[in-house]
């Protein structure tokens, strides 16, 4: 169970091996190629050269239906204008698994995923009437519903917490962590380095389409790496009462002229 990517042009010499049970966080500045990498991994784009294998088989050899039953993707942008209810949207995650009528089990999984993400009380609300963060949680629930019964499935999340408030960001990462413990592989584009540090097993740091650093959070997220990949000086503080350090930018005061 691994992904191997080798690609050129937008992304160069990317080499990555993700296992189930691992949470990979992809970090990097805007335009570093994070989303492109996610699209390659989800077969939305095909690498110009190089190969991606998924469960020891070439990704190109999977058809879309097979893939839909093995991995779920949460994309960055999810605009829906038609007034579908939250329940209907999440049920769409189960579409690859039934033909014309959802089984009682499909419906129960949907309910359970709605519970998991904490939006069961929105169940019958219209999706377009929800706020951005709430919509993102609905999409997360849909992604979960798709992967729920898959053994050794992969979950690809492109900025899963965009628009969410602090509590739900925290809960989302907690959930991703939980899924890896159940044997799923999670690969997520993460912007908040503190969350990456706290929850990821492995971190891939991209800079200008190349791997800048890769490894465990403590190895990758060093002051020097962050300075070079993001152009921001940070301080990494280890508080006495938390098991993980905290990254804070060294902000210079804004000069008012």
């Amino acid at each position: 169970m691994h992904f191997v990517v080798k690609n050129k042009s937008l992304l160069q010499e990317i080499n990555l091996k993700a296992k189930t049970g691992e949470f990979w966080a992809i970090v990097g500045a805007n335009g570093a190629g994070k989303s492109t990498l996610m699209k390659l991994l989800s077969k939305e784009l095909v690498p110009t050269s190089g190969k991606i294998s998924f469960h020891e088989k070439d990704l190109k050899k999977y058809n879309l239906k097979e893939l839909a039953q093995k991995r779920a993707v949460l994309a960055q942008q999810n605009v829906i204008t038609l007034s579908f209810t939250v329940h209907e949207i999440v049920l769409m995650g189960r579409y690859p698994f039934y033909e014309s009528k959802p089984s009682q089990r499909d419906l129960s999984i949907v309910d359970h995923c709605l519970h998991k993400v904490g939006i069961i009380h929105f169940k019958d609300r219209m999706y377009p009437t929800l706020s951005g963060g709430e919509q993102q949680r609905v999409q997360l629930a849909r992604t979960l519903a798709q992967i729920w019964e898959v053994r050794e499935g992969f979950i690809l999340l492109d900025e899963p917490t965009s628009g969410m408030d602090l509590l739900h960001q925290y809960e989302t990462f907690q959930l991703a962590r939980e899924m890896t413990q159940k044997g799923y592989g999670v690969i997520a584009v993460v912007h908040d380095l503190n969350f990456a540090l706290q929850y990821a097993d492995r971190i891939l740091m991209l800079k200008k389409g190349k791997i800048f650093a890769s490894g465990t959070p403590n190895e990758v997220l060093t002051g020097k790496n962050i300075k070079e990949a993001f152009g921001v000086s940070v301080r990494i503080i280890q508080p006495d009462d938390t098991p993980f350090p905290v990254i804070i930018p060294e902000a210079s005061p804004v000069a008012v002229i």
Partner: protein
Amino acid sequence: MIEEETITKAEQKAQKIAHKNFKQPLSPAWVILILGVVLLACVVFSVGTGALHISFSEIAGIVSHKIGLSDTPILEEQKEIVFWVIRLPRVCLGILVGAGLGIAGAALQGLFRNPIADATLIGVTSGASLFAVIVIMVNIKFFGIINEYAGAYTLSFSAFAGAALTTMIVYQLSKMTGDGGVTTMLLCGIAINAFVGALTGLMTYLATDEQLRTITFWTLGSLGGANWTTVISVAPFVGVSILFMPYLAKSLNLLVLGESQAAHLGVNMKILKRSIIVLATLAVGSSVAVAGTIGFVGLVVPHIIRSIFGPDNRYLLVGSAFGGAIVLTIADTISRTIVAPAELPIGILTALLGTPFFLYLLWNQKRNRV
């Protein structure tokens, strides 16, 4: 594994209360039933109305006599002839054309993820119009020469060919010029429409007064040419569309999430796009070929159905087919009675009657939301 247990438990619980809980949205069967009853009522009303009134009991008598339920024919034989030869084929054609326009409009709105999409966007209507106009002009100039070869159906046949050809050009262009996404196709459709429209305009410019009148009437649409032959020639095209389109409903639902998200959930966009365009062209092309361009139905009927039964394509597609049939049956009844013995073009009526109703629905939606 505690979660697995909760799911299993919830499943069992849900099964227990399943028969009690009927608050689920209407199933497609109910939608079909409700709309079917309405359509049947419209059909009975429509076949009975006209210069010669046929009452409900007379209709029942005529039908039961024909299928052999009763031996006694009804007293007025004239009514029986009017029913079988004039009224029924016309109503059948109205149903077919309306259903074709409705289902194609709903499917194309889903495909383009755009509420203002309809068959005009992929070039079906403009292509059919151009070819029809050409035939009208050539036909009147060389009267009879073309008719000798293709019979009375030259116009229908070439309109259909024009519809299919234009759509094919739009589709191929979208593949050549862009990444083949639906947005490219939409833009190509608009471009080709403008071009074909210009050609039609040029032909209209060259047309004589008599030709102009024919062209205008064709553009406004009419079911006046209905007989059993036209019904039978349109039925397979519309039938195929109505039969196979609902199988695409689930994929169309996923498309609501976006093109790439639908692909992640296993929808093959290429196949989906091609099937919808082929099926829509069959339905609309054949409808336009026999009845001219009837506006409004393909655009607004799906909206009406959506606001009543919700946006789920499993109900929407079938519902729009029925809705289109109902709207066209009513509109045609009015079109042939309101200025009798003349006929008002049906395209005028669909828009005239539909627009206020549609605006009412929009207003109602807003009121419900606030």
